[in-house]
């Protein structure tokens, strides 16, 4: 608890620096990552983040110490070479994209490990700091590092905000952009540069192996909550920042714990919640709304069946009659009867079921929509009357009162449907 207060009141200036760094980094990589997610190039980020390792090692060898300028430059160059090779191979060979990305990623990483062992055997005392680049250690970020990483992050955020229109064109409809005169090749180049930069600034805090998560997961999770690009970017940034701070806090409390894995675990947790519970798109939400819809259809079908019998002069049906009408759906029908009874739409008299006045009103509405839609299909779409039933069977549950009013007006309040049945109105 003391740790918690100490950490979040920022009494220690170095903690404040680290948190600022993580916030900038989170926003920057979430922005870039969301765009590349929308561009369906999420795994390119993974390739780049593995591919910066040899650059980091070369930068270290050249500088002889953990100098942020050398390391950032080295990482940027090897990330750039990897990106270039990826698209060159894609253009000039018949290999599939995933094989190319997996090859580039593992070859660069392997070469990085060769360099890492060379450094290890050289016995440079600063070597220990290099391991932080593999799994990340946000706490190890120093003030001088912050100026470089933070500055680059600000550049990324600003460029993506200012040129939002250009970059959205790139990911949503690059051909259209070209047609209306935007230099799409330059925009793609700029975007790749930003992507490499965002990986480069993340490696110190998150590490090369897991940096991909900071690019991919926030966008993928945020996509479940909104369809609006600006909101998507903000939400992705928020997710990244929250998990970034959580990971940093854990590394602060348990110093031997690397930051990267905890950032990834908290990010994935947020993502899981989004996948399951996000309104409209979440798996569980979708499951419930589908169930609800199925129940509604069953209820309305039952009402319709009762009403049609009424038209034939039978005021009530036995439960067995109803079961016969809908074979294989005994359980669902039982639920529907109970529900309609509770809502006051039907009356149960021992085994006999009949509609209440309110039930008649509701049943009329469903039957009316069904028959109006059939009439519309035959009159306006010229579909034969014996082909319209199936479509009406689906649409009767969906047509809104506004649509109904329009249909009535278009069809001039018809009395009979194409099967010469009465269209009931109150």
């Amino acid at each position, binding site marked *: 608890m003391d740790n918690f207060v100490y950490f979040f009141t920022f009494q220690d200036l170095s903690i404040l620096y680290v948190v600022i760094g993580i916030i900038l980094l989170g926003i920057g990589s979430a922005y870039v990552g969301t765009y590349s997610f929308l561009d369906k190039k999420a795994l390119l980020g993974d390739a780049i983040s593995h591919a910066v390792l040899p650059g980091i090692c070369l930068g270290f060898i050249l500088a002889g110490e953990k100098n942020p300028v050398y390391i950032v430059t080295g990482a940027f160059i090897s990330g750039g070479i990897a990106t270039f090779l990826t698209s060159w191979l894609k253009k000039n060979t018949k290999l599939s994209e*995933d094989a190319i990305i997996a090859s580039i990623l593992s070859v660069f990483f392997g070469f990085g490990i060769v360099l890492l062992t060379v450094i290890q055997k050289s016995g440079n005392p600063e070597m220990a700091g290099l391991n932080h680049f593999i799994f990340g250690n946000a706490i190890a970020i120093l003030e001088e590092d912050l100026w470089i990483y933070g500055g680059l992050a600000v550049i990324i955020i600003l460029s993506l905000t200012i040129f939002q229109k250009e970059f959205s064109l790139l990911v949503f409809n690059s051909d259209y952009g070209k047609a209306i005169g935007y230099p799409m090749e330059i925009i793609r180049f700029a975007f790749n540069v930003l992507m490499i930069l965002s990986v480069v600034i993340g490696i110190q805090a998150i590490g090369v192996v897991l940096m991909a998560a900071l690019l991919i997961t926030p966008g993928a999770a945020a996509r479940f909550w909104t369809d609006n690009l600006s909101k998507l970017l903000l939400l992705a940034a928020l997710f990244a920042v929250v998990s970034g701070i959580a990971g940093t806090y854990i590394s602060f409390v348990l110093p031997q714990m690397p930051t990267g894995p905890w950032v990834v675990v908290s990010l994935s947790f947020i993502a899981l919640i989004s996948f399951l519970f996000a309104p409209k798109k979440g798996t569980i939400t979708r499951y419930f709304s589908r169930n609800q819809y199925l129940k509604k259809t069953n209820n309305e079908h039952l009402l319709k069946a009762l009403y049609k019998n009424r038209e034939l002069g039978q005021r009530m049906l036995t439960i067995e009659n109803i079961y016969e009408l809908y074979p294989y759906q005994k359980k669902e029908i039982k639920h529907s009867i109970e529900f309609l009874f509770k809502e006051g739409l039907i009356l149960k008299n021992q085994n006999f079921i009949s509609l209440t006045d309110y039930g008649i009103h509701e049943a009329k509405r469903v039957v009316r929509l069904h028959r109006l839609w059939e009439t519309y299909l035959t009159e306006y779409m010229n579909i034969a009357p014996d082909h319209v039933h199936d479509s009406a069977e689906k649409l009767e549950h969906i047509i809104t009162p506004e649509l109904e009013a329009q249909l009535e007006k278009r069809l001039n309040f018809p009395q009979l449907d194409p099967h010469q049945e009465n269209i009931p109105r109150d």
Partner: protein
Amino acid sequence: MSFDQNAFLIILTGSLIAISCGLLGVFMMLRKMAMTGDAISHAVLPGIVIGFFVAGSQRGLEVIIGAGILGIIATLIIDWLRKKARVQLDASIGITFTLLFAIGIILINLFAYNVDLDQECVLYGEIAYLPIDLWVTGSGTILGPRITYLAVLNFTLVAGFIYFFFKELTLTSFDESFGSVMGIPSKGINLALMSMVSYTTVSSFEAVGAILVVALLVVPPATAFLWTKNLMPLIKLTTILGIGISILGYYLAYLFDSSIAGMMVTVAGVLFLLSALIKGRSSKSAGTSMANI
């Protein structure tokens, strides 16, 4: 140069691992699942750590079982994300492997004081220690390097798997629906292939490390694919590449005094890029534009 038994053993083991990975990799690549292979090799990490913790050493069967289970779990999570949660495939792969890998690293750090397993060993592996890591029976007889035995076993199982299921693997790789019509359980074959990949990852991680397994899984088949499009030559070329990579990798690592596994991958990468340069559609490469970077 006189016969160096250690060098021979290391090269033999390296070749066996490279061939096992390459053989599986050919089919992974044909199914456009190279990145799934990458994901699996990252994702088995928590399984390795838990198995290690349960068994108390990395020799236990628990480690292999743990990794196998995790490999299958990873495939299932990717599938669930893609089909049920409707996340696009590349993002599903990225999310799954980063999460499982992160859990693995956290577990290593939690158990760090209890078990003799460090993250570097799991990640990079060190085949150079092979000659001193001997398999000693209860009665004290020294049978030879343990990892070589593991590699031989792994190679036998992989080769057997591919030999006996060759028809099924080929059919489902090229035309899944036709395979289903022929009565081949394509889902089962797929899961079996994924389990073999997980098992190979675990069996090799001590020698070449979890991440470098990916390179051996993907790069030799991709290189071979640049030279031929027929399945049998593809398999043969991949095998030859596997042997060549480990011989060259060993001597270059010896020369530069560096990680043997890393050098094997570097050699594989150089061969891959050279092949791409020679066999790539050179006519078009003149027009490579700025947008490539």
